[in-house]
């Protein structure tokens, strides 16, 4: 690729869920693959996440939830991005997310949902091929 811009990613934990092993492993894998990665830490509201994403001028937001609150919190992030005219940011999600919820999340604007067992290389490839 001739594109030299470094991809910037915000890894975020929306909601009250404290499980961030996956979020941290992915943050590190993305960083090791040459991206610039910011991790929000726990308990972020969708508002805080969107604000951080815009302030940090990221290309990608990676949302991680294992508590089951994804159907409410993921679409809320997309909604706020649209309100702020920032829908060009690619939003991906991961965590314990039942298959049957995935079509709904994609329809809401989540580009891809990565469930347990996904190799980090697959996520890296997805980001690299989807960030313009």
């Amino acid at each position, binding site marked *: 690729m001739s594109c030299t811009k470094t991809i910037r990613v915000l890894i975020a934990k929306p*909601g*009250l*869920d*404290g*499980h*961030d*092993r996956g979020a*941290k*492993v992915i*943050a*590190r*894998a993305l*960083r090791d693959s040459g991206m610039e*990665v910011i*991790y*929000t*830490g*726990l*308990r972020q*509201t969708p508002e805080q996440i969107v604000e951080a994403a815009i302030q940090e001028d990221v290309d990608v937001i990676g949302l991680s939830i294992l*508590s*089951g*609150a994804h*159907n*409410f*919190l993921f679409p809320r992030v997309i909604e706020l991005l649209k309100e702020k005219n920032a829908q060009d940011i690619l939003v991906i999600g991961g965590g*314990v997310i*039942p*298959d*049957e919820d995935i079509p709904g999340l994609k329809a809401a604007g989540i580009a891809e949902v990565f*469930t*347990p*067992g996904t*190799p*980090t*290389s697959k996520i890296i490839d997805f980001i690299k091929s989807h960030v313009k």
Partner: protein
Amino acid sequence: MGDKYSLEKLKEEKKNWEETKLNKVLSKHPERYEKFYTNSNIEVERLYTELNVQDMDYLEELGFPGEYPYTRGVQPTMYRGRLWTMRQYAGFGTAEESNQRYKFLLSQGQTGLSVAFDLPTQIGYDSDHPLSKGEVGKVGVAIDSLKDMEILFDGIPLDKVSTSMTINAPAAILLSMYIAVAEKQGVSPDELSGTIQNDILKEYVARGTYIFPPEPSMRLITNIFEFCSKNMPKWNTISISGYHIREAGATAIQEVAFTLADGIAYVEAAIKAGLSVDDFAPRLSFFFNAHNDLLEEVAKFRAARRLWAKIMKERFNAKDPRSMMLRFHTQTGGSTLTAQQPDNNIIRVTIQALAAVLGGTQSLHTNSRDEALALPSEDSVRIALRTQQIIAYESGVTETIDPLAGSYYVEHLTNTIEQKAREYIDKIDKLGGAAKAIEKGFMQQEIQDSAYRYQMEVESGRRIVVGVNKFQIEEEPPKGLLKVDPEVGIMQEKKLKELKSSRDNIAVGQALKELEQVAKTDDNLMPVILKCVKSYCTLGEICDILRKVFGEYKASITI
């Protein structure tokens, strides 16, 4: 074993075997890997013999069950006397739904309850708080006030069952609610048996449901120690937890080391608060994980028991033998479950449960096969419980105590884990203790490094996870997963409204005012929290007052 021949002779014969037999085979058929490791990256030798444990003193290092250093178990008869408590962690949706699940579990032969609370409850928000949106009833039951707790335990005799509650930052409040429900059943606090998790340090390290900064959090914990030592002699005041540390990616060695380091911090805090060690230490309990490396896990439990006994005796000068006994609950490893081919998880759970039993656990939760996908369905929970029952009644491993003792490999691993955990604890001491080490992000960084290494090993194929990076199949999406009613949040909000309009709001205001006053002093908070709870103050109202006085914890972020 014995003195029939000298160790010199054994060494010679072993060398002889290597040179003649082994090398011949190796030259034709090399082994699968150049080096072998346990799950925790301890290098594993090809063969263990007496040479690996030649320096061990049986009486000093192993001893007898029910006697110091408790390597072989905390009771003299272990499972020959009484089996472990079969305790499935459960709770979701409303108090009504969870109450039904508990009655189902008890009817299936479960012997103790274990309450899962939803995240708003664990973080001290009522169900109508803006941050609760989407989370109410999801990972556990929603409890906003004593009203919900009364429903949760309706028809369950609290003098007959023991109840474990996974609650940390607001542990004092939920314990008070439990006491209040029991009183309504005519059961006094001294008759109650059970456990509150009450372990805030591991929340900072790994689990994330903290509210207050370390200092007031430690005060709440020692307040509970003190209150229970006087009023609740059968209650485990804390469950010092390695479980979540392991889930976050720690190795078995780190799990033992960081858990016991946290334990040391609690003992020190209580002594500093003026309690004497033998007044509270007998009611400290522990909570560990069980992963797939069967023999390493068995060794881990044995090493933890021995190390804690030595710490209590040597470091804290405990005199009561019960202060030195590490009693523990085990849960099988959630992070080892795969979303792929979920029925395979039944086998993983069996291995892990076996490790816990061979390691001498006092109680056990076996995970359900579908937990990498959703909360477990009733069918899956039944299989998980049956797994324990088959081990208990059919496998035969319960009929003698600590059956793997004397295995060269298991004893060698037990020694290694103890020694390496001790090295970590020394390092943490040098950093100023567990609380300081956490503040500096030391434990977090160590755990993250292990988690990352594990993931990279899976991705490189050096570590095989069946169905994930080998033996994959095309699968249909699983059916019959449990769905939490999305209306739970709305129902809870309605219940809260009703409560606030029907309770004595003057008494509520007075109780909360008194709480604020006591929080500002050094007095024990338990009596006033009990008063608040009995006046039907909500969990969120109580926590808001404490947030106002204590402030909130801000985590340091490391990746």
